[in-house]
Each structure stands twice: as structure tokens, then as C-alpha cells.
């Protein structure tokens, strides 16, 4: 018991800035250039709910949600409610799924993205600041800039489109709860997918 307390105190003492984005804490700020060369800062969206979607169009798990049109449907519903939806690609240049601005625009056209913008993070700094591990990996930031959700797109980790209708769509759920002024019932989950290609 005594030892446990000591260990926890040491652990608390060691905890610091190194931690990734944490639900209930302010979301890490960032400024990134989008596929059209325009800079976006998280601070620009103060007062609005923001969704971050880590993506890699060649990853089968991303393909699952785009080919089933699940992702686009969520983007349409969210942006229709005045939510900002940002794709983020943290793939290092040359690795699978990494794109430049033109490449991103081509992917958006081909897949029918309905997001607000597609942000490029080729050096992976923002991805690492958030602790983004997989594609897709989803974050929801509330209107006060606090992180409200961190995790998977839905509750069934698989690459099979047939699982989508059976799964709880965590981002949709978080957005509707935030919209109703309710607490987010599932605020963290383990993201699943391909690893982010830092």
C-alpha cells in the first residue's frame, strides 16, 4: 500500500508535457497548410466543434469507410451542423498514402470527401502531438477547444465493410451528444487501422 502510494507519486511527478492529447484537456494547437496551400490554425475555429480525421487513402481501413461511404456521410452530416471536419495526413513523403496538395485534391475528388479541408502534416509533428496512431484515428474538439473524443471511428475493429452497420459510430455519437449539451458517453476508445506512416 505504502509502496503503491509512493510509486504513484513518483509517476505523477514524472508526468509532464510528453503526454499525447488527453480528453478533458485543451487540444494541442496547430497550424497546417491544406491541399490548396491555405493555412489553418486550430485557434481559427474557436467556438466551433472540430473533428480531426487522420487519413491515408491507401490504407484498407480508410478504404473500408470511404468505399462504404460511411466517412463521407458523417462528413456531410457534421459540416451541415456547422462542425469543422479536417482530414490530416501525417504520412512521411515517399511512404504509402503520402500526398502533396494536388495529390490530396485528387484523392478528395475521387473518394468524394465532404470535409472542410485536407491538411498536410508531412513531418508528422501534429500527428505526434496528438498521439495519432492509426488511420483512421479520430479526434473531436469541443467549441471551447477541449478534447472531447479520442479514438476509433467505430466500435468494431475490422477491415470488413459489413461490420459498419453493426458498429456504434463513436464520432457521430460524440457529435450528437455535444450538440445536445450532454457529456460524451464514450470519450476514448482504442483506434484501429493501419499505423500512421510517420
Amino acid at each position, binding site marked *: 500500500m505504502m509502496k503503491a502510494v509512493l510509486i504513484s*507519486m513518483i*509517476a*505523477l511527478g*514524472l508526468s509532464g508535457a510528453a503526454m499525447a492529447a488527453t*480528453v478533458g484537456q485543451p487540444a494541442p494547437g496547430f497550424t497546417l497548410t491544406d491541399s490548396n496551400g491555405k493555412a489553418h490554425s486550430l485557434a481559427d475555429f474557436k467556438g466551433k466543434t472540430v473533428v480531426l480525421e487522420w487519413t491515408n487513402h491507401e490504407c484498407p481501413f480508410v478504404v473500408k469507410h470511404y468505399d462504404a461511404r460511411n466517412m463521407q456521410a458523417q462528413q456531410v452530416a457534421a459540416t451541415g451542423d456547422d462542425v469543422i471536419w479536417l482530414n490530416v495526413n501525417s504520412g512521411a513523403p515517399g511512404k504509402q498514402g503520402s500526398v502533396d496538395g494536388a495529390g490530396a485534391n485528387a484523392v478528395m475528388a475521387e473518394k468524394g470527401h465532404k470535409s472542410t479541408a485536407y491538411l498536410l502534416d508531412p513531418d508528422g509533428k501534429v500527428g505526434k502531438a496528438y498521439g495519432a496512431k*492509426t488511420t483512421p484515428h479520430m479526434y473531436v474538439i469541443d467549441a471551447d477547444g477541449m478534447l472531447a473524443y479520442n479514438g476509433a471511428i467505430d466500435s468494431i475493429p475490422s477491415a470488413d465493410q459489413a461490420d459498419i452497420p453493426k458498429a456504434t459510430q463513436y464520432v457521430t455519437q460524440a457529435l450528437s451528444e455535444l450538440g*445536445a449539451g450532454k*457529456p460524451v458517453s464514450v470519450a476514448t476508445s482504442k483506434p484501429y487501422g*493501419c499505423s500512421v506512416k510517420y
Partner: protein
Amino acid sequence: MKHSAIGLALVLASAVQAAERVETPELAVTLVAESAAVPGQPLNLGVLLEHAPDWHTYWINPGDSGLPTKLTWTLPDGVVASEIAWPHPERFELSGLFNFGFHHRQLLPVALEVPATYSATRLPVELKIDWLVCKEECIPGSASLDLSVPVGTLADSGPYAADFAAARARWPVASAANASAHIAADSVTVEAELPAGFSADQTFDLFPIQAEVLANVPGDASASNGVLRWVVPRSDYFRDAPDRLSVVVTQGKPPQSRAWILQADVVNLTAPATTAASSVAPTPEPPLGFGWALLFALLGGAVLNLMPCVFPVLALKALSLQGGAHPRHGVFYTLGVVLSFVALAGLLLGLRATGEALGWGFQLQEPWLVALLAYLFFAMGLSLSGVFSVGERWMGIGQSLTEGEGDRAALFTGVLAAIVASPCTAPLMGAALGFALTQSAPVALSIFATLGFGLALPYLALTLSPRLAARLPRPGPWMDRFKHFLAFPLYLSAVWLLWVFGEQQGVLAMGLVLAGAVALAMALWLFGSAASGRVSIAMALLALGAGGYALSQAIAHEPAASPASAASSSVAFDAADLQSRVEQGDAVLVNMTAAWCITCLANERVALATDAVQAAMREQGVTYIKGDWTRRDEAITRYLAQFQRTGVPLYVLYPGANRAPKVLPQLLTPDIVLDALATVETPRR
């Protein structure tokens, strides 16, 4: 989506051995049987995975990304497949992300239970396998494989015997070594006895079977003094602690590797507050510097001299100095006080080390001890009132010391001062001393020693400085009256302790103890009366016996259902209930209190129970939960420990919406509470 993998799949059937194979450029999968099926005996099947160079598939816990390979069987009636008997995994790193899995050639064994009544000549097996194979990119695949295993008696070691043997060599050995996993807000520490065959000279790796408890990075690993230790950050996605954490420990690389599976008892230092959706740690108060802690202990000890339980003893001792100071006595008195405090703290640390959930104030959580202390104060009061005098020696009060009798008496007075002071430390200094107990033993003991030194200081100063002693008032007949007066604070202390006892045991029990007090008074009166002789001593013993009987009867009573808890509408503390409320995003104010904690009662009177605060709680929809630590309560002690406390009061506000809990100060004002309540976000219910 079409799995291109399947389009490319090349299906081969082997006529020689029961085996079927599917091949993609990254992975070949073969379903094999180790032997013919024998009714009544397990049939060992294997899924052989042959990875292209640099590609891997995943273990039951895949790590940061990836998916475990999944098998779905279709089998004849009565035949049942086990789960995969997973060989131990290897760790793969990709740009700072970690995965657990397999590469090269790896067989995943599965045992089929074949009933003794199985009568067909072949045993048809259908397997649907889903996998995810990754290098840097990932390719999911799935396939259906059929196998028709002959039924017979032959024990056949076919071409896959080496693969079965290699897989078994990678099975972790179940170890009964004691293991524990301490889950703190940010880190998890796994500790275990070295399992049999473990080499302390060799590095090891550790893989948790349950995901989302440990982060997947390599931990800070050490093995010394017969204990292996693995300290690793807590998973970012941690929500609930399992009761037990199963971990696989490996040494060496396959095929020379060894592996063990350990069951670690989980000590969750963060539940329930922080396991709720939010993974935010409670913000600890900045720890007091050691120097400051000592200074406060010294001052606190000095202030104790003014407490109603201690003051009478000290005042009389001080007055006894008028005949001239005896430095030796001051030193022995100080020694008595300090040793008693250190002994008390040492006892508590010792009990805590053996796993007792005790905090400071424990001395008031045992009803029999509370009753005894009440009797002690009452008896001391009676003595001061002149009902009896037990030879001045034993209380060390009065003439004997000024006449230069014994160092032992001085030492004993010190012990007595510490004893009478101890109940007074709990109500006012419980939290501060509780904090001291969470420090290392030398630090804790020196804080307690300093506290004792502070308590002894005024008297020590008087004995060491004749000039100071000379400033005491002259002796005279007023001293008797003063002594009688000093009995009253002691009676008040006794009343307070009796009230605490009543809160713990109920009114009936308190009545019995009061009857015992009357018996005690009578015994002491007889003892002290001039007509003392054999008869009176016998009477005194009888009365003491009666008091003891009353006490034993009182203790036998079960405590009243729930100690009275003011007028405010509160809910009794229940860890599971609190957790579910917090998980639902409700706002909750937790008040951990005890009847003997005067700070707690003052805070309730001044702040928590006021109309303004009660109204604000109703308005904000805050549930008010009260935990009563008047008696020992392990659940509350554990809750306190989450906030690095070992004593009450503790006030924690969960502001709703799964935000991090906030610890309120130990001294409350209505404004502090109202400001905190204003931060609450919750839908009105």
C-alpha cells in the same frame, strides 16, 4: 471492397497430408492436422502462416495498430475448437509505434475436442480465417479452408511436426510467481517474482494480453533482487482496470526464446474517478517541501499545548516548576513525548506495510479505544477536581516533581502528554499527518518526531531557562482553584469522545458507556475517600468491573445503520455508484468526513450545509455524496489513496461532462465551494 488477396489466392490441396493452402504475395496460409483424428482424444490442428520477408501478422493483442488473426470454425456436431493457443509474440517497431505479432514461418495451434462417440470415417473441418498482414502498409485478407481429416488410430508425425513443435516451444509457461500491476494516472508498474528458469542477467520483454491498459512502448525493464519490474506509461485509451492483468514475459529470440505467462493482481490507484471516460489524473497538490513540513510540524506541536485535552496537564506541570527548574526533567519529558509520537507513527507505518488500510485518525476509528480515552480524560478530570489523587506520581502533577523525584516520572508525563494529545491531532492535523505517512519512513518518522518536539517545547523551554520559569505566577492557594478549573476542559474532551463513540455505536451503547463512567467515578471516589480500606478497594474494583462490563456490552452492539449526517440531502458513498455517476457525466461533490474530524464538521457547518451552497448544488444538479470514515472503511481509505491522502477531510468535485475531478482545499468557505460549483457543466436533470 474486394479483397485483392483472395483474387490472387492459389488454392492447393495436398493429398499426402491433410492440409490445404492459400497463398497471397505477402502471406501463405495452410490448415494442417498433426495426426489422424482419434475419437475421445484432442485433435491438434494448426494454421501455418508463412510471411513474405518483412511482413507480419498479429498476436491476440496487436499493439498500437493491426488486428489479431481470427479463426471461425464450422465443425461436425459435438466437435469443439479451442481458442488459438497463442505462441509468444515478438515486438515490431514502426516509426515509434509498436506492434506485437509474428513473422517468418509460424504455426498457430488449435485443439479440437472430438467426442468418443464420433463414428464417421472422416472429420470434415471448415475454417474461415481473417488476417491483417502488414509491412509498412497493411493488407487485410480472408479465406475459407476445408480439411478432411481421416479418423483412425495412427499417430502420424507428418511434414508439419517441426512447425507444431516450434509453436509449442513458443508457448508461454504458466507461472505461479506472485505478480502485481499498479495502475497510476500516467504509468503502470508491473512487478513479479522471477519465474522459474528466468535469467536475471538477460534482458526481457513484456506483452500484456489485455489491450488498453499498458502503453505498447517498451517499458523500463529491470530484474534485480529476485523481482522483475516493468514500468510503462498507461495506455492513452485506458478506461477500466481488469481484476487481473495477464502478461507474457519473454527472454531471447525464437527459436531460442523462453516465455512465461503471469497473472498480475491489479491495484488501481486511479479508479473510479479517472477510469471514467476521461483519462485525466486528479491534480495533486504540490507536495510540501521537507523543510516546510518540519517547520509546520514544530508549530503544530506547540499549538497542541493549547488544546483542551493537553492544556490542563501542561499547565499544571508548568506551575510545578515554581520551586525551581530541573533541566533534566525537561529533557526526559521531551524524550517521553517524542518517543511516544515516533512509536505511534512507527506502529502505523508498520501496519500499513502489512497491507492494513489505515490512515491517520485510525486511533479514533476503534470504538473501544475511543471509550478508553473518554474514561482516561474523565478520570484525569476527576483527579483535578479533587475526587481522588492517585499518588501524585502517576500523573506527574504536583509536588513530586518539584521535589526532584525521578526522571522516570518526567518521562512518563511526556508519554501521557502524547497519549492525551493524540486524539486532538486527528481532528485538526489529520490531513497533514496523513500526508506525512505517505512519505518514506525516515521522512514520516522525522515529521512525527518534530511534532512531538514541538509539543514538548514550551515545557522544555521553561525547565531550561530559570528566568522564564521565574516569570510564572507565585504559588498560592489560587493554585488549587486553578487546578479545579482545569478539570473542565478535560470533561469537555471526554464529552466529545463520548459523542464520537455515540456516532459510532449508537445511543444505547453510549448510555452504557456513560453508566460505566458513573461506576468509574464511584470507584475513584471510594478509592480517594479518607475511609479507604479493604472495603473501599473492593468496592472500587467492583465498580471498575461494572464499568468494564458496560463497555464490553456496548462494544458488542452493532453500530447504528448510518451515523447522523446533518440536514443536507446527501447520498452515502459507494465506489461503484460514484463511478457509474461519473461515467454518465453527472456532476458529483464527494465529501469524505468523520465524526471525530473537527475540521470536517466545521467545513460542513460553515460552507457545505449552508443554504446558499445547498441551493447551488440543487440548481447545478450536483449529486452530494458523503463518505463517513468515523469507523474504519476500506473503500474510503482506498478512495483517499487515489488522491494521495490517508486522512479526512477530502472534498472532490467532479464537474460533470467527464472532466477531470478537482480537489477542493481542506478549509472551505462558502465562496470556495460556490466558485467550484460554478464550473459545473451538466444538463439539468
